[in-house]
């Protein structure tokens, strides 16, 4: 499984306070593009207080390449 704190740090560099969620049940210890594409980017909240998410990143500052680059620096 990947280091979620490391991923958090990388995303904070690219877009501070960005809201996201990720379920990781893989054996991989490094972020893969497949896993990156499973990140749920929070776009809102429903009437039950549950986050509305999308797997298509709505933030132009964040791309797979940039996240990978930041992760590799850590």
């Amino acid at each position, binding site marked *: 499984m990947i280091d979620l704190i490391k991923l958090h740090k990388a995303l904070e560099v690219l877009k501070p306070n960005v809201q996201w969620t990720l379920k990781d049940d893989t054996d991989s210890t490094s972020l893969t593009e497949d896993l990156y594409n499973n990140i749920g980017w929070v776009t809102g909240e429903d009437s039950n*207080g549950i*986050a509305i*998410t999308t797997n298509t990143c709505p933030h132009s500052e964040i791309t797979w390449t940039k996240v990978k680059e930041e992760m590799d620096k850590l």
Partner: protein
Amino acid sequence: MALTRLGLNQSINLATNTTGTLGVANGGTGLTSGTTDQILKFTGSTTLASAAQAAGGKLLQTQSALFTSQSAHNSETYTASNYTDQITPSATNSKIFVCFNLRSHIYQASGSTVRSQLAIYRQINGGGYSEFFPANGGTSWGIGVSSGERTMYYTPQITFMDTTHNTTNAVDYTLYARRNTSATGSVNVGGSSIQAQVILMEIAA
């Protein structure tokens, strides 16, 4: 009374050649009949009688699920974790004992506070999840410091009794997590090689 001497290799037909009952003191029951679906019970030191069976236990069924996955919840609104289990109650008025054992950890690079909120969401018959326990607010934990990077690990156990499911359809319980609205940082559930378990027990009313 007619008496017959038995020879070698001869036997008595107990079904036709005996009368009366053999008492407890001689290894019998002292009974000539019993009552259907009842059991034998000593009503005295040498007396047996038919008696109703004892009532069954209160525990009707159990379900459990084990997890080693992890999830990140860097959101100010609740998002679902992988930790979930389902039970189908056998009666509408039974109670469901719910137990989540897990590890959670939080991280913050700087700032004054980081807090995690955990809650169990319930779904009945696939009808959609809503927050169930705690009914509002969530189980909050975290740390408040003046400055510096911090990571904190915690192993919460969330247990409660569901007395309101009122259904014999499938009931799902799932752990949801979020970051407190006044906090920054990272909220996570589980971790590499960290086991979590969900236990559900249906208890008769």
